[in-house]
């Protein structure tokens, strides 16, 4: 069962929830697809790490063959090439790897080479398989890292928790394409609601089953809760506002492993999600 954890913006507690859900499951796998800011490994501190480099193809020029026609410079929609002092210059970090320049060079002066944009780290922490996608600083897009992570078969474990990138851009769509269920994490603030609304639209667009977990929940007005009630969205559970939990988390410690009280909170959320997915399957199969 693949479960993606999403949030409209960073800092809502997406990693807190993902890490703790994976920790309370019996037979789980945790995948960090937040490749720009992968933080889950800071909590799990996985061991026996194997590294797989992720490369993309970028152009390389043979200056002797290049006759300065500039077809590539004009073609490139991303402005990744310039022609200076009778030399073609390629800006690797702007290149989107579309291969257009190489394909259309009349002199065949361009070829493609591999360029490393990041890596996938696989390790183990207390029996949980940990996969982390890490994009090198300054790269344009981490989508290919996520594609590489997700092409693997994840049915070896009962539960796969996917920590997705924040927001609702293309990279998030890539992450949730094949999941069974989406958990939306929301903060109890006015800002939180606005962002929740955007992810809510995204999961609807992809026709995914989903529910909301309210983070930093405390007595008082909770605009995120109101939003769920107004829109008939399932509330899967609540993580209380708790300065001790915040402190544990900011130190990179997994709360559910530390303390029975927190373990119970996350176990309850996980059980609820499993039930939701099974009920969903039952409806489809009947």
């Amino acid at each position, binding site marked *: 069962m693949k479960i993606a954890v999403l949030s409209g913006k960073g800092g809502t507690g997406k990693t807190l929830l993902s890490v703790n859900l994976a920790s309370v499951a019996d037979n789980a796998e945790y995948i960090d697809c937040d490749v720009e800011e992968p933080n889950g490994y800071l909590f799990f501190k996985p061991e026996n790490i194997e590294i797989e480099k992720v490369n993309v193809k970028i152009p390389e020029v043979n200056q002797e063959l290049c006759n300065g026609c500039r077809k590539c*410079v004009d073609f*490139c*929609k*991303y*402005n*990744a*090439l*310039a*022609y*200076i*002092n009778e*030399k073609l*210059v390629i*800006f690797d*970090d*702007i290149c989107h790897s579309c291969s257009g320049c190489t394909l259309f060079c009349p002199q065949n002066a361009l070829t493609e080479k591999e360029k490393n944009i990041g890596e996938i780290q696989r390790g183990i922490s207390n029996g949980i398989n940990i996969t982390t996608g890490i994009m090198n*600083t300054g790269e*344009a897009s981490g989508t290919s890292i996520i594609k590489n992570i997700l092409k693997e078969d994840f049915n070896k474990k009962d539960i796969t928790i996917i920590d997705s990138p924040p927001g609702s851009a293309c990279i998030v769509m890539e992450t949730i394409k094949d999941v069974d269920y989406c958990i939306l994490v929301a903060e109890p603030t006015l800002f939180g609601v606005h962002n929740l609304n955007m992810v809510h639209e995204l999961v609807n667009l992809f026709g995914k089953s989903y529910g909301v977990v309210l983070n930093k929940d405390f007595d008082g007005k909770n605009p995120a809760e109101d939003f769920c009630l107004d829109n008939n969205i399932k509330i899967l559970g609540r993580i209380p506002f708790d300065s001790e939990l915040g402190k544990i988390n900011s130190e990179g410690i997994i709360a559910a492993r530390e303390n029975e009280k927190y373990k119970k909170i996350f176990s309850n959320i996980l059980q609820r999600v499993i039930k939701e997915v099974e009920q969903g399957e039952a409806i489809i199969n009947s």
Partner: protein
Amino acid sequence: MRIVIPVEEKSMGSNVSEIFGRTPYFLIYDKENKKEEFIENTASNSRGGAGIKAAQIVVDNKGDVLLTPQCGRNATDVIKGAEIKIYKTESRSVKENIEKFNTGTLLPLDNIHSGFHGHGEK
């Protein structure tokens, strides 16, 4: 000597544009003949890589020096690759900056940036 400046309007009374890559126009000022020419910056609407394309325009128009308030890393690579020198503008007025450049009081841009590099080790 051809002096290139990113400008907001097509006139000598214009202000220097605050941004290089997405400036609407470039002024090309011929120092010896005191002639001015304004060209559109077709890079200004790029979704990405605007600095590189704008720099290519400066190079293609045979600039000798560039006066600008700032210049990103990629654009700087292009400009310097073409052996064009970059100076930092001081005030908003185009005319004032040309005068200051002529009297040698503008500072090279790289002098201002160095000292920040290496911060926050990656």
